[in-house]
């Protein structure tokens, strides 16, 4: 839904036509509107270049870069944006050169945010960017970070034995640096924060059913025995119920059936 709009809409600024700008802003609101209103954090950043110190990169930070040529437009944009809250996005431009940092968290039920013991199953969870371009590992608290990721649409996968994680599509906007959206690719569920939870636990083994009479009877041996017993006990009953004459006739008929008809 949102994804398709993002890359294609062109944002054009005209120094004379104010109407166009407003329309562009409205469109921008339209795109993000639903999410923006739901988010609680009221953080607005509209400045020409935003560089956060490394320490601040860790969690999520919102940022928006608007580069405009005319001062008037900048002011207008700022005013419009002030009335807008941006959602706490999932990444921020990292201070170290080109690209952004994607920070997320892997969360597994029963794993506390700081617990060491419960996370033992996640000990060697690997996070894979774009099918192996970058590989990182989950820290003890479940967080992970990819540094120097260029703008574009990326894919994050979690490889953790025993759990099935959906790959996550992550869009880093080139026009609004630091603006990141994420969604699970398996069920197209949008993520407000990059918290990755397994869709299900994986059971790699068949579970042995406890012994029961039914399962024994269903086994080939049981069936064989059942069938034999039924032949032994039920068949005589069936034959018994018949008229002896009928049996004889039937037997005769059988005999004639097998004989060649030529006679």
């Amino acid at each position: 839904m949102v994804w398709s709009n993002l890359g294609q809409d062109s944002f054009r600024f005209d120094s004379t036509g104010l109407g166009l700008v407003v329309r562009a802003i409205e469109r921008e609101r339209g795109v993000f509107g639903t999410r923006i209103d739901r988010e609680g954090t009221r953080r607005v950043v509209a400045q020409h270049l935003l560089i956060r110190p490394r320490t601040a990169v860790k969690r999520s930070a919102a940022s928006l870069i608007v580069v405009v040529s005319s001062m008037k437009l900048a002011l207008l944009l700022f005013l419009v944006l002030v009335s807008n809250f941006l959602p706490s996005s999932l990444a921020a431009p990292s201070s170290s050169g080109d690209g952004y940092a994607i920070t997320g968290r892997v969360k597994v039920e029963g794993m506390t945010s700081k617990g060491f013991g419960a996370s033992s199953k996640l000990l060697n969870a690997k996070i894979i960017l774009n099918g192996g371009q970058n590989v990182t590992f989950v820290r003890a608290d479940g967080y992970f970070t990819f540094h120097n990721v260029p703008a574009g649409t990326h894919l994050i996968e979690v490889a953790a034995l025993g759990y099935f994680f959906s790959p996550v599509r992550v869009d880093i906007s080139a026009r609004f640096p630091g603006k990141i959206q994420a969604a699970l690719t398996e069920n197209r569920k949008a993520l407000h924060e990059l918290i990755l939870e397994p869709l299900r636990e994986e059971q790699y083994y068949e579970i042995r059913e406890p012994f029961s009479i039914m399962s024994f009877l269903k086994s080939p041996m049981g069936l064989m025995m059942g069938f034999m017993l039924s032949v032994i006990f039920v068949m005589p009953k069936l034959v018994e119920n018949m008229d002896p004459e009928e049996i004889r006739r039937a037997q005769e008929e059988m005999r004639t059936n097998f004989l060649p008809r030529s006679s």
Partner: protein
Amino acid sequence: MGSSHLRPWTAMAIRARLGFVILLSLFFSATLSTALYEDQVGLADWHHKYIGKVKHAVFHTQKTGRKRVVVSTEENVVASLDLRTGFIFWRNVLGKNDHIDQVDIALGKYVVTLSSGGSILRAWNLPDGQMIWESTLPVSTLSKSSLYVLANMNVGKDNLILVFGGSSIHALSSMDGQIVWRKELSIDSLEIQQIFQPHDSDIINAVGFVGSSEFVVYQISYRTGEVMQQSKASFESGFCGEASLVFDNLVVALDASKSSLVSISFKNEVINFHQINLSDLVPDFSGKVTLLPLKFNGMLAIEIASSILLLRVKGANELEFVEKISHPFAFSDALPLSKEQQAFAILQHDESKIHFKVKSDNDLRNEILKETIQMDSQRGNIEKVFINNYIRTDRTHGFRFLVVMEDHSLLLIQQGEIVWSREDGLASIVDSTTSELPVEKEGVSVAEVEHNLFEWLKGHLLKLKGTLMLASPDEVAAIQAIRLKSSEKNKMTRDHNGFRKLIIVLTRAGKVLALHTGDGRVVWSVLLPALRRSETCGNPFALRVYQWQVPHHHAMHENPSVLVVGRCGHGFDAPGIFSIVDSYTGKVQNSLILEHSVSHIMPLPLTDSTEQRLHLIIDAKLQAHLYPKNSDSLKHFFNEMPNIYWYSVEVEKNKIKGYSLESKAELDTAEEYVFQAKELWSIIFPSESEKIAVTATRKMNEIVHTQAKVVADQDVMYKYVSKNILFVATVAPKAAGEIGSATPEEALLYAYLIDTVSGRILHRVCHQGAQGPVHAVVSENWVVYHYFNLRAHRYEMSVIEIYDQSRADNKDVWKLVLGKHNLTAPVSLYSRPDVMVKSQSYFFTHSVKSMAVTATAKGITSKQLLIGTIGDQVLALDKRFLDPRRSVNPTQSEKEEGIIPLTDSLPIVPQSYITHSLQVEGLRSMVTIPAKLESTTLVFSYGVDLFFTRIAPSRTYDSLTEDFSYALLLITIVVLVAAIFVTWALSEKKELKEKWR
């Protein structure tokens, strides 16, 4: 009337049929996956963990309870090994481009690794390998980066980790990886050589070269990174860049001509140069000198004319000759024994012996320790050594050596004995093949295999208890032990089912090993002499391994053998290496360096009279060389020569070319086995819009059982079964990179099916908005390929099935009888083959590392795709899920045929992971080997780890499963017999009663 008479019989018949149907349905209603019970783990499969060739090792002996060593390897593995047994405590496999540069221990509890050319620094928890923090450093890729963990300044205080490379130094906190300070020494072309910290000071010294002639010393504050003092001086004859830190105030460097040493002493901003004359030390010195890295105070190691000199530095211009060492050898780094004393080890190889010497700086002329051990010659020369000490009970120093050998194996040597060894060359398998085991000779092992009947019954009763879930935990353990111990699977002879084989693998180190499929043990190993570094071949590397001789009918007394092909150097025109190894003993039968290069190797489906397989080697000049070189093979080859076609894929030039062979006009004896390639066709892909991403063909030895496929409503479709189908996938050049780099609009993927004899494109399909990486597998008449769909932003798998329409009319038997069929119609190369293509695409969740397809002996069993996922697991996916005839609502007849209703994505059933709860770390490839039993395929997957199992894609319909209970069968029979007698007695009684009546 008549019908009513027959009722009981028909009813009986119906019942019998019903029973049969139930029975059948029970046999075949099994799920599509071949799942495993937890207690069956290890019965048919084995999993071996490796780490690869060790690059760095750091010992950790703080806690005496758990002695361990932390290593980093060439397979990008950082691992913690038990120093006593060599077992892996934990290991982490980094990404494939994330090469580890250095490893160290910080704070005594974190393992710090510097990787990706010095740009990523990670800390791992020493006890369990959990990542603690990760830091990315902006480092220029041009210069090499190094790691320096500062010694404990104050106990309990945060220590700094320094990463330096080029002209910048980063200091990071070892607690959380935050950059504490960063210093960009603003001088162009500065290369920092060393960083060191003089004892008990707050100052770090950094020494380096500017350009080629200036030497710089910086004194930098430990806390802030401020430059306290800076001094530089230039040396007129220049430096070559190699330098060795000898003392805290003395560096020895090589001058620009690499022929003499320069000692540089620096103290309080004064830098002095002294040229050292080597001819004083070495009387007949000439040529070039190499400085060897020896991190030992006051010592220097130089290499002159293939011998190594150990020199002691006494002062700024005074060197003393200590010892001369010849190749092959290894030095260890310095090991501090006490505050003043340090030691280092020299290992020297002398044929099959290794001499260990440990010297301390107190007395360089004599050794603290001198040991000699015998070394298996198949391990090659010694490559690296790491030294560690321990205090003996008599308070003297004992030493242990961690040794890396030429075959990448890792050994721990202590007190003149090998404590443990790891065959880590198996982490870098290049290629593999299989060999049958010898046939069991009669009267040899019958007696030892037979158990007595009582034992046998007892075992089966236990098993029965297990299957009925009545066994106690002790009994369960006993069952497991019986199963795992079963000597049957580890025997060294051929078995009836074809499960026992030898897997012959070729590793990157040039070692050939034979693994037993029963438990994966190494039966024999040989380090090929032809693939070792020598004077004639400076840089050999292993390419492939093929079956060379498989004795079948004619040469039964001979052992089978394999052919190992290598190349001398990395260029395509480097001469080839040929080695023939006996599959049973590992003896090298023949070994030679070829006169020509090796660019393609083609095993032909022909053998000579001694059952040696014919191989054609195509060299870089497009000449084909026939092997084995004997007149017999030539005779066989000439018969088939007009039928031999081959093709080459030139990825850089975006070209595929097809060739046939022609013999040379002038036949002199030397060139008898050389043939000329004749170009038949070529396909050139437009380089501005397409780039070859992947090609795939059918396996040479694949067997197709039926050419026809019976579809619903009794119709027949003929498979287009051709061994010459080549699948080619091309992607748009813009989208040839990684996933995030292209938009859906600029991405295109074309899939081609090409006949490699005629060069005809049979089919071409375009996937809009799709990009690589592409993985493909071709089998029978179908192709399955995996790629990324940018529009949906998911991975997709497509299947193409190709059917022969020209034979579609041959269904009518009458036509065949009356001769109205088209079987005798002329076939022309130029006529367009009448094919029909069906295809379908599905979403697939995971990234794929490798794909393969199961192979069975006769090709009857349905196929499964084996998918190596990004999580290093192997998923078996039934081919029925990738049937282009799947539809949303299959008709009744289609359902009966087994067509699964269409879903948009392929199901991932956790039980169908053939690796169950294991991971084949660093998975690279899967190999499928047919067993003799038609239902079963052997699967060998390798990467850093090895995993072997056998799978039955349609369940084992032709044999009883492992857990089949013979006891239950016996009991059933006994019960039935008893029932017969009882009923017989009863009927006798009844009859008697009847008669009395």
